[in-house]
């Protein structure tokens, strides 16, 4: 008799716990207190959890942190009973280890039964994306460079008084009906006895667009610095140098497929903020899968099942990715041509109606090589300038790797390829500079000023 009673009490407790789990109704509000989050700098996060259900939620509430960050201060976990219509507040700081979007996926609650019999882990999805910017030191470098360095490729530097005037006097010509009255040169009318019109041209500073390649090859991290992270730092610092010299600058991010985000060229106080905002959208770096593949190959030889599945999955994903690229590339009349950069350049040229532009492309020329060459051709035909900053792939690899004969051959082949591309680009009138992870913006700007590009 007692067994029946206790069993029914057990059944009640179990069913009740299941009901509690199913009807969980929590409103989670997560706020990131910093406007801009920097890599390796603490970012404050507050979380408010409101229990909207009439049943008390018991357990340990824990905000799930992403992989690439660490808790620096505060509590991301709290064990308590959350009564109905009440709020639990958590406040903590996390330190992101790398640049790029950081996703806090949600909240984990280790639920416990109100009758003290059962435990269950429950995950509530509530993603919050924090766009982590590059390290603060990079901003400091940009600030220090501004005003000191001059980017001579864009023409002469200008002082503010001159830069504020949009047009400069160019010459005079005979009056034609339709010319504005204020442009007529009245002073020489008595001498020549005919109307002459003053003509102007826009100031000599080139509008500059910095294109940052964020393709898959750029994002691969093979040493301490990923190419894309270096490119972001460079583009930000170059932009600040140009803005400080009163050149209109914009920035765009592109990958194998399209232009992901852009800020059109402009001058002004907020342009640097706009550029930083766009650069925050650059995807984060990822660990090199080459090492993973080597590891799986090694384990494959040991006849283990699990790594085989991993490598198969990785290779199938890679194949899918490549086939998708092929499909995109072969759609039009010109196969194997990237459309991201080319399309972006064409769009800007169309909008600026013949005004001269400078395009700075920061790329590793691996997956975007054809697009960059196509862009250089467009620039040549339309009378625009292009500077290609080549983040040379081999210089971003781990230097500690053993140099055997096949590796040396590969390095030689890569260098030959790079020289060929350089020759092609220079033939198309583009400037070219090859950089590695140790090259800072100052060095690059100086190299360009000395005509080494």
């Amino acid at each position, binding site marked *: *008799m007692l067994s029946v009673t206790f069993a029914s009490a057990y059944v*009640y407790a179990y069913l009740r716990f299941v*009901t509690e789990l*199913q009807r969980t109704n929590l409103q989670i509000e997560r706020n990131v207190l910093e406007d801009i989050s920097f890599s390796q700098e603490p970012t404050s996060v507050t979380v408010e959890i409101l229990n909207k259900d009439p049943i008390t939620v018991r357990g340990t509430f824990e905000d799930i942190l992403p992989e690439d960050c660490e808790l620096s201060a505060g509590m991301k976990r709290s064990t308590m009973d959350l009564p109905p219509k009440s709020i639990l507040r958590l406040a903590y700081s996390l330190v992101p280890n790398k640049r790029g979007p950081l996703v806090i996926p949600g909240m984990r609650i280790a639920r416990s039964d109100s009758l003290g*019999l059962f435990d*269950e882990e*429950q995950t509530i*999805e509530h993603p919050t994306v924090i766009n982590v910017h590059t390290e603060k030191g990079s901003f400091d470098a940009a600030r220090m460079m501004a005003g000191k360095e001059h980017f001579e490729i864009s023409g002469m530097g200008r002082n503010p008084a001159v830069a504020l005037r949009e047009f400069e006097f160019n010459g005079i010509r005979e009056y034609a009906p339709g010319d504005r009255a204020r442009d007529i040169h009245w002073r020489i009318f008595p001498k020549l006895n005919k109307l002459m019109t003053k003509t102007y041209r826009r100031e000599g500073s080139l509008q500059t667009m910095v294109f940052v390649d964020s393709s898959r090859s750029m994002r691969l991290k093979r040493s301490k610095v990923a190419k894309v992270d270096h490119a972001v730092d460079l583009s930000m610092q170059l932009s600040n140098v140009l803005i400080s010299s009163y050149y209109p600058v914009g920035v765009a991010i592109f990958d194998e497929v399209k232009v992901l985000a852009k800020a059109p060229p402009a001058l002004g106080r907020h342009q640097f903020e706009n550029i930083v905002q766009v650069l925050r959208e650059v995807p984060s770096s990822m660990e090199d899968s080459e090492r993973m593949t080597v590891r799986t190959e090694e384990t494959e030889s040991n006849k283990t099942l699990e790594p085989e599945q991993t490598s198969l999955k990785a290779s199938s994903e890679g194949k899918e990715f490549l086939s998708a690229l092929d499909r995109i590339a072969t759609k039009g009349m010109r196969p194997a041509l990237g459309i991201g950069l080319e399309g972006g350049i064409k769009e800007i040229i169309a909008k600026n109606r013949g005004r001269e532009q400078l395009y700075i492309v920061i790329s590793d020329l691996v997956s975007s090589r054809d697009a960059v060459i196509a862009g250089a051709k467009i620039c040549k035909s339309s009378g625009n300038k292009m500077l290609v900053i080549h983040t040379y792939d081999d210089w971003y690899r781990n230097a500690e790797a053993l140099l055997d004969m096949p590796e040396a051959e590969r390095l030689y082949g890569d260098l030959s390829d790079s020289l060929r591309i350089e020759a092609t680009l220079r033939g198309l009138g583009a400037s070219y500079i090859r950089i590695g992870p140790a090259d800072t913006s100052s060095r690059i700007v100086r190299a360009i000023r000395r005509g080494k590009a």
Partner: protein
Amino acid sequence: MIFFSRRFRLLMAIVAVSDLVVFSQHSILVILAQAIGAALILLGIVYNYRPSSLTGLLIVATASAAAIELPSLLGVGQLLTAIVSLAIPTFVLTWLALSAEEGASTNVLLLKRPATTALVFALVSLSSAPIMVLIMSLLTPTMSTRITPTAEIAITLVATIVGTIVLTRRASAAAGLQVAREGT
């Protein structure tokens, strides 16, 4: 769902213990055990301390089960006696003892659906022996339907275990979905 205040829970515990006492054989030992158990349960409820309540529950339930005479569960009268004298008060006391710490911050809550399911399950389990006898008599009318008390207990236990597994397994599948609703 129904909310129960602490005062009402104390009243329920007293009523349940009284019910058990009424149907028990009135020896001094039984009354002493029931009094101690009841005191522990009430103290546990008052001070929100579950171990005390559970200890009291075990004392009351064991003493009452030993003191109430239920020779068989096959007769309707005996079945009703079993339900009223032991099953319902013990169930109520078990629930109150387990939820002793629940009422620390709010009133104790009884979810209707799980409670109804548990009660139906208890009734079916208790009447499993008569149902079994009925089925046997329908299927084999010529066979003798005399069942010993041990067989009755065995049938009831099997029914209870099977029912518990079925109910908790079905609920596990539902809980396994883990679809937590996200707030707006």
